[in-house]
């Protein structure tokens, strides 16, 4: 058998044995945006929220004629919160689907893991949820990681400022979930405290699904904390509140946006007065874009009651992220990763969540984040609903 024939026969064998393989890759007919997010598992809501926000934006863009004459498409892959699957999805989106950008997901550990493949391949990444500081401030140049979402470093400053308004002496305890997000925020909080010349009196951690937090709460009480800052999801936030209730400990509670989902429903009256940072709320007076968005959510997804939209920030951030990407493609004039990365720094747009003027700033390494601290909202739980803090019964 000639060498050529041998090779052909091997290829034949490979095609027979791995017929499955080749069907993974299908050629792209239209430009797409790929999203790796948790569609299954405990944070399944996040993947669905991102899909809603992104899909609404894409549909609007396509109705208006698409981008560079082509219609955009959304591909979503599940990472179930596992970094390796996020990494695989990133490669699949970039190399097999040949999408123009990767839309990020919920988990900070996944976002941090994506930094490496994103830069190895050179595809723009647009975070819409995971707030880990280092995912975007990763020291790379050029930096392909962008974000339209909160950044823990800034959130930490924002919340520490709020906390210090309550406790002038800085008696603050920090409660954080034992995940990449929670652990990643710890240094940010410490730095924010140090910047104000203060130190945490207690730092307590817990796992997802922990049933009882009394040891942590007792330690915080014994340390004399007047404010408890919480970096957790609703479920564990509720456990912290209940543990406090049980031992009769009533500090002021301020949380990152993890407890902005259904804490009011879970904790009932205990949640009243708990302050939460958010990037977006559908319960404030809405802009024109916001009203249109609400109408679409009601028409397409049956979400008629704005207070029933649990992951407002996720939906809104994804919506804006897609528009910013579309603008960048138009500025770049091509579906080209490197060109789009450069063009992202030139995007100026009035978005749903914030005015992006400009969206990103190449001269400032901290400005691969589009949402600035002044865009953050302080909300507060009141009778099962999350309402803007300003003007609430707790705003004294």
């Amino acid at each position, binding site marked *: 058998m000639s060498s050529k024939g041998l090779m052909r026969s091997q290829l034949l064998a490979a095609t027979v044995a791995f017929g499955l393989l080749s069907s993974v890759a299908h050629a792209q007919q239209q430009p797409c945006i790929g999203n790796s997010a948790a569609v299954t598992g*405990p944070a*399944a809501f996040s993947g669905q929220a991102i899909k809603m926000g992104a899909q609404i934006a894409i549909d609007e863009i396509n109705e208006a004629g698409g981008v560079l004459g082509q219609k955009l498409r959304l591909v979503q892959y599940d990472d179930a919160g596992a970094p390796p699957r996020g990494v695989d999805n990133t490669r699949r989106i970039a190399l097999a689907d040949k999408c123009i950008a990767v839309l990020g997901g919920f988990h900070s550990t996944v976002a941090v893991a994506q930094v490496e493949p994103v830069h190895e391949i050179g595809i723009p990444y647009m975070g819409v949820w995971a707030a880990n500081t280092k995912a975007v401030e990763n020291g790379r140049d050029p930096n392909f990681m962008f974000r339209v979402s909160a950044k823990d470093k800034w959130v930490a400053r924002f919340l520490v400022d709020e906390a210090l308004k309550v406790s002038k002496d800085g008696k603050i305890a920090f409660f954080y979930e034992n995940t990449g997000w929670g652990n990643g925020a710890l240094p940010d909080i410490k730095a924010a405290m140090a910047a104000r010349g203060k130190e945490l009196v207690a730092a307590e951690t817990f796992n997802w699904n922990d*049933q009882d937090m009394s*040891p942590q709460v007792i330690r915080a009480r014994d340390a004399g904390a007047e404010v408890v800052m919480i970096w957790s999801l609703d*479920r564990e936030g509720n456990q912290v509140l209940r543990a406090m209730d049980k*031992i*009769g400990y009533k500090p002021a509670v301020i949380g990152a946006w993890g407890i902005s989902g259904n804490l009011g*429903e879970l904790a009932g009256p205990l949640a009243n007065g708990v302050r939460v940072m958010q990037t977006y709320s559908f319960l404030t007076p809405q802009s024109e874009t916001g009203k249109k968005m609400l109408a679409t959510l009601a028409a397409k997804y049956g979400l008629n009651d704005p207070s029933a939209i649990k992951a407002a920030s996720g939906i809104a951030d994804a919506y804006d992220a897609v528009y910013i990407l579309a603008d960048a493609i138009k500025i770049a004039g091509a579906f080209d990763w490197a060109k789009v990365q450069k063009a992202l720094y030139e995007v100026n747009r009035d978005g749903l969540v914030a005015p992006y003027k400009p969206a990103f700033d190449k001269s400032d390494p901290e400005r691969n984040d589009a949402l600035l601290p002044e865009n953050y909202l302080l909300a507060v739980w009141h009778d099962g609903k999350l309402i803007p803090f300003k003007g609430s019964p707790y705003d004294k």
Partner: protein
Amino acid sequence: MSTVAQYIFSGLAIGGIYALVALGFHIMWSAARAVNFAHGDTLMIGGLMAAYLVASGWSLVLACGLAILAGGAFGFVLERLAVRPFAGQANSIGWMLTTIAVGIMVESLATIETQGYALPLPSPGVAGSVQVFGAGLYPQELVIPVIAVIAMAGLRLLQRHTLIGRAMQAVAHNKNAAALMGIDVNLVIAFSFALASLTGAAAGVLIAPVVQASATMGVLPGLKGFAVAIMGGITSAPGVVLTGLAYGVIEKFVEGYISTAAREIVGFSLMIVVLLVFPQGLFGKREVAKV
């Protein structure tokens, strides 16, 4: 002092859940020499179903009752579908994997339904806290370990004084002999799985007001309940219940005096050490190998 009391009572509450779950494992193991690895999901079915029923307007008692029955039905069906076909095999891989598979499916359904969010189950037991020896607790938490002990005593009464209970003991002792005595062994096993699942779902209903109902609420209690059952000696009902309660308390003390993070490491290491010293568990019967 009040801190120590807090740890003890909080530990007993969570330990009560481990004890109830472990009791379920004991019941299944005694009958079938096999267990349901999706037993944690039975707990979740109980808790989540009750939460949904209450949310849609049912009364709490009725909702909880129905949820517990649903859990029992789940166990009954699962035994027939996933355990019995593999019960005769020499190794345990068959029923381990099938029940794990069913668990994955059930958990996935629950995640789709809840989108991963937790749901509240309002109960008068968590409306306000009470003080016991300086420890703050919900009445619900005080009730859980008591129910675990009552369930154990109830099981004993059932085994002593009812026909099905005696049949369960006979099957546990010797399946072939029981069959020769005219006992429908399959029926007894199915009943045992249903009973175990009733206790599992009851544990879910009991804990849901405290921890909230969610798709993943059963994962850790399921795993730890099994570890507790093995550690306590899966053949002994009082053994697993006692071990469960103790394990909960130990966990709280580790959390309180070492660190929250060390809890799982200390707990599972303890289990391995116990098994090395007492291969049949702390209170389990030693089986003499016959050549």
